[in-house]
């Protein structure tokens, strides 16, 4: 029995004396809890709303102000014609476009029926349904208000329409997310582990003491993973289209170009990680903690970015996957053209150039 306790005591010593284990054991749960409990949620807040108001009367004004006053919505855009609807979805990505029929108030009073159409971005079905429900609740609240003044029965008919994803398939949302994750995984993690392995086994020493320029060594590492990523890209797209029925509504060429830029960014990240990691385990851990987790939680893949606290939104914008997933969704699901992803393209290109330059600079021609 005594032996058992002495072993337990020893195990405690091992844990306390290893900083990294302590950090993971104690800090990580706190971090995750705060993240999930506070920062990440599937709730919808501050959704941007665009209004197409054919009536512009007291009723519609009241509904609009009720929406705006709630935490969930920010009424920002006011459209003048139905043609602008498609444009606003391409350029600004509001969560909701609300369309009021003509003579709204008059219809309520006289015919007992008025119509509101809710147009929602169906790319992320869960969020869209939530938005639709919140909007409906608020409109029902108005209906209740009115009922207390009015005794005659009436009904506001609310029709939600989910654009881009009429069948509300969740795969539409997660396929671009998975693409972002897998390409990052293959390129960054595998590249960094491969270079770290050379350092760990000692073969890097021999390679350095040879005529080979260190830059060649890097390139030779990067090339196979580049090819693998391209194959992965093709495979995912084929599966998505043929197995999951996810459409590529927009231009395939544009999609491939932005994917290639993203692959470069990921490879550069892998190189950067390998220059600080001296063993494979460290490379793996850094790739996991510093890359995978943020990609999964903060890139908008699972949790809407709009709902995150400002600080996390800022962090989210630093993650290459965020921009890539946003661009991929626009091209694949919304069928938008290159003009809609100019911002993403520029950001990713800058990231690629900056990261590649830093990795080259940091690559050590000596052992320390």
């Amino acid at each position: 029995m005594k032996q058992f306790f002495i072993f337990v005591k020893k195990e405690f010593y091992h844990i306390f004396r290893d900083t990294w284990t302590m950090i993971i054991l104690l800090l990580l749960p706190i971090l995750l809890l705060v993240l999930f409990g506070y920062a990440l949620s599937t709730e919808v807040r501050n959704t941007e709303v665009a209004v197409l108001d054919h009536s512009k009367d007291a009723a519609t004004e009241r509904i609009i102000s009720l929406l705006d006053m709630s935490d969930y919505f920010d009424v920002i855009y006011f459209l003048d014609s139905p043609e602008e609807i498609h444009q606003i979805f391409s350029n600004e990505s509001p969560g909701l476009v609300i369309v009021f029929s003509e003579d709204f108030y008059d219809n309520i009073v006289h015919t007992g029926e008025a119509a509101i159409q809710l147009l929602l971005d169906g790319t992320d079905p869960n969020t869209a349904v939530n938005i639709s429900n919140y909007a409906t609740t608020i409109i029902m609240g108005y209906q209740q208000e009115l009922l207390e003044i009015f005794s005659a029965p009436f009904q506001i008919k609310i029709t939600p329409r989910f654009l881009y994803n009429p069948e509300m398939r969740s795969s539409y949302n997660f396929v671009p997310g998975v693409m972002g994750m897998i390409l990052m995984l293959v390129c960054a993690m595998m590249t960094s582990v491969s270079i770290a392995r050379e350092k760990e086994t000692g073969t890097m020493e021999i390679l350095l003491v040879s005529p080979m320029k260190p830059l060649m060594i890097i390139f030779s590492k990067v090339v196979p993973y580049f090819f693998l990523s391209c194959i992965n890209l093709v495979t995912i797209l084929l599966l998505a289209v043929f197995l999951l029925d996810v459409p590529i509504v927009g231009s395939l060429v544009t999609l491939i170009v932005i994917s290639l830029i993203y692959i470069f960014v990921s490879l550069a990240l892998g190189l950067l990680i390998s220059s600080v990691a001296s063993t494979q385990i460290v490379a793996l851990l850094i790739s996991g903690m510093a890359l995978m987790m943020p990609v999964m939680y903060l890139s908008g893949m699972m949790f809407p970015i709009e709902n995150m606290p400002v600080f996390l939104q800022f962090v989210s914008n630093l993650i290459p996957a965020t921009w890539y997933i946003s661009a991929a969704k626009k091209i694949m699901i919304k069928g938008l053209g290159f003009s809609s992803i100019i911002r993403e393209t520029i950001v990713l290109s800058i990231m690629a150039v900056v990261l590649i330059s830093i990795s080259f600079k940091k690559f050590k021609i000596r052992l320390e």
Partner: protein
Amino acid sequence: MNKIIQVQNLYRTYGKVQALSNISFDVEEGEIFGIIGPDGAGKTTLFRILTTLLLADSGSAFVDNCDVVKKYRDIRKRVGYMPGKFSLYQDLSVEENLQFFATVFNTTIEENYHLVRDIYVQLEPFKKRKAGALSGGMKQKLALCCALIHKPRVLFLDEPTTGVDPVSRKEFWEMLGKLKTEGISILVSTPYMDEAGRCDRIALIQNGAFLKIETPDKIKKDFALPLCAVHGKSMFALLKDLREFDGIYSCFPFGDTHHVAFKDESVSIEELRSYLEKKGHDDLILNTIGAGIEDCFMNLADGEVSL
């Protein structure tokens, strides 16, 4: 004779440890120069500085007339390097490893095959086997081939025979002897004192400093004290009693005998024998012996390893 390696006043620290302390020496072209000393003495640090993998804190070093700091690229083209642990690709075959290194050095296996032939014939039956599946001795032979395949001017071998069985060790050193005839200079480090005798000149190193640089024969000749090997029935008790004897400078166990160094010529073996017999020791055998490299090392190193 051209000096293929020139080192002057090299210093290097790692944190609080002084890894190298005022190291200076030269290696002549075509020499086998041995650096003999235990683990942690600084051998690997010295090798890494000379192969341009580390920078010294101060001092200068030239390999084949190239400065290790400024002309590192030139050095890297002309040297062969075998670092301490086996550092080839475990998941590539013998053949693939050799092919890889030949190509990396802009040559082909055929071009310099004559250099590695004697070694490679032993590996040839296993040429398709993955390097990771070879025995320790075979791995070292393969590593040597890969370091030689581009006909380097200098070979840096850092503890090439550590962990290898004695038979392979012997064969390895025979191969090194043959390389000398090709004009390749060799700087080799080893903790095995018996291998020191196979070098042209050796430097004894401990705690980052050279104790002595000489030919092995001269080091042995320079050992000033009379040396005697003592064997008895109970070796442990013998050790205690020997150390208490007045005329003794040092006494160390050396396997089946204890090596005893007398303070000077005045002490005689007969004195020692009668002292021991009085102490009750049986089966005594005492012989005068010449000093071996290990005796010299012990003497120079003061016998105590400090923290």
